[in-house]
């Protein structure tokens, strides 16, 4: 059975749903109940533009047990066109070609397996545009 811990994040991981503060316009990913900037509790749901640029990155060589089968893999912080920043793996890329500032796009990918039954868990990874 799919766990609540996983399924409640599906709108963000599958569809990039974020909360835009109705008062100050700040966008939060994932959505929040209160805006840290203006303290408003009114938000509208928006879907993020999946394109953005790389702000910083690393290559994970030593991973936790759960991810060790994937290592080495690239992880970076991407700033999307909406201004939202998020942490994501960078897939299908030659490590030597990764550069801060490069243009990336989020795509739907398998991220990890959950629990002893090995349920597939999905989400976004970035690829080079």
């Amino acid at each position, binding site marked *: 059975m799919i766990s609540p811990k996983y399924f409640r*994040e599906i709108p963000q991981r599958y569809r990039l749903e974020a909360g835009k503060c109705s008062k100050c316009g700040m966008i939060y*990913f*994932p959505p929040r109940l209160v805006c840290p900037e203006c303290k408003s509790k009114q938000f509208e749901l928006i879907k993020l533009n999946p394109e953005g640029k790389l*702000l*910083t*990155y*690393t*290559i*994970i*060589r*030593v*991973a*936790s*047990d*759960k*991810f060790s089968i*994937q290592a080495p*893999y690239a*992880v*970076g*912080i991407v700033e999307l066109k909406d201004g939202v*920043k*998020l*942490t*994501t*793996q960078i897939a299908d890329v030659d*490590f030597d070609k990764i550069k*801060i500032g490069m243009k990336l796009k989020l795509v739907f990918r398998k*991220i*990890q397996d959950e629990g002893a039954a090995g349920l597939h*868990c999905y*989400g976004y990874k970035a690829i080079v545009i």
Partner: protein
Amino acid sequence: MKDVAVIGVGMTQFGELWNKSIKDIFVEAALKAIENAKVDHIDSMYVGSMSSGLFVGQEHLGAVMADYLGVNPIPATRVESACASGGLAFRQAYLEVASGCSEIVLAGGVEKMTDGADVTEALATAADQEYEVYQGVTFPGLYAMIANAHMHQYKTTRKQIASVAVKNHKNGVNNPNAQFRSEISIDKVLSSTLVADPLRLLDCSPVSDGGAAVILCSMDIAKKITKSPIIRIKASVQASDTIALHSRKSFTTLNSVTTAAQKAYKVAGITSKDINFAEVHDCFTIAEIVVSEDLGFFEKGCGGPAVEEGSTSIEQGKIPINTSGGLKSKGHPVGATGIAQVIECYEQLTGQAGKRQVKNARIGLTQNMGGSGASCVINILEAI
């Protein structure tokens, strides 16, 4: 608020303590601190631990440690702020004494990391589980992204970053409680195994067991039972930042550190120039560079050149940093670290630091942070 003093300290050896349980480790440190302070009782105690549940399967540490320390039925509170748990335990003890609620309080910290847990996974719980860790990022990975951003923005070099590890190992040689008492070279750091590019194994603090404890009391009592110099707490300040590194405006400045530092200097009535030495949270080499800038010791971007030039060494340092060997060489039993920093500060201020002694040490600072800087505790101590 009452004036508060630190009147006794005690810690275990840091390292792989296979024959000692988490209880043994904490109680050993606490007994040493009580004996060192020459007090016949404590009114209350705090235990800082990041993740005893994941590391050894034991929660409820306040009660566990009060029981094994033989101090029931006094209040015993476990506090947690990831890697800043020890610093937080110290601050809570400080507040309890400063408020007049208690007279003599023990602040301790402990971690037992070598009992077989997946340490990488346990440490990663200090980051955002759903939006950082879910993607496969690790703690070395988060600091590696800070390092890459710092190198990109300020042209900080890999050699400068490695200089932190070399300096701290050199200091640790003279610390009998340090986990690694051996010098290392720049070449050795730069040829060690890559963990998360650009950080290598010798850029990372180790997995450690260890405990540390200090006794705090009101200045009135300290004057009666302690010989000069008395170590007074000039400031104990805490600040928070976003849990996820990616949510911040900058990845090269830690806002929890700058905020806590500015407030601490204000409370103490001093500036960064008045600090004679500092123990900072070098969980990874790059962290010491970033923090040395954010504490105001160096301009932004100058932390790398400063450590390479020796500005933070004991011998010629403008501001000696991590005279104890830091987390890198002394070891990083997570919950104990913030308390061990205070102990180094105490030993320096009381002139008991031996070959590590900073000349004319009168005011010292400790900086302890959780996660990638989502929490930070800064203490300023003074010998009077």
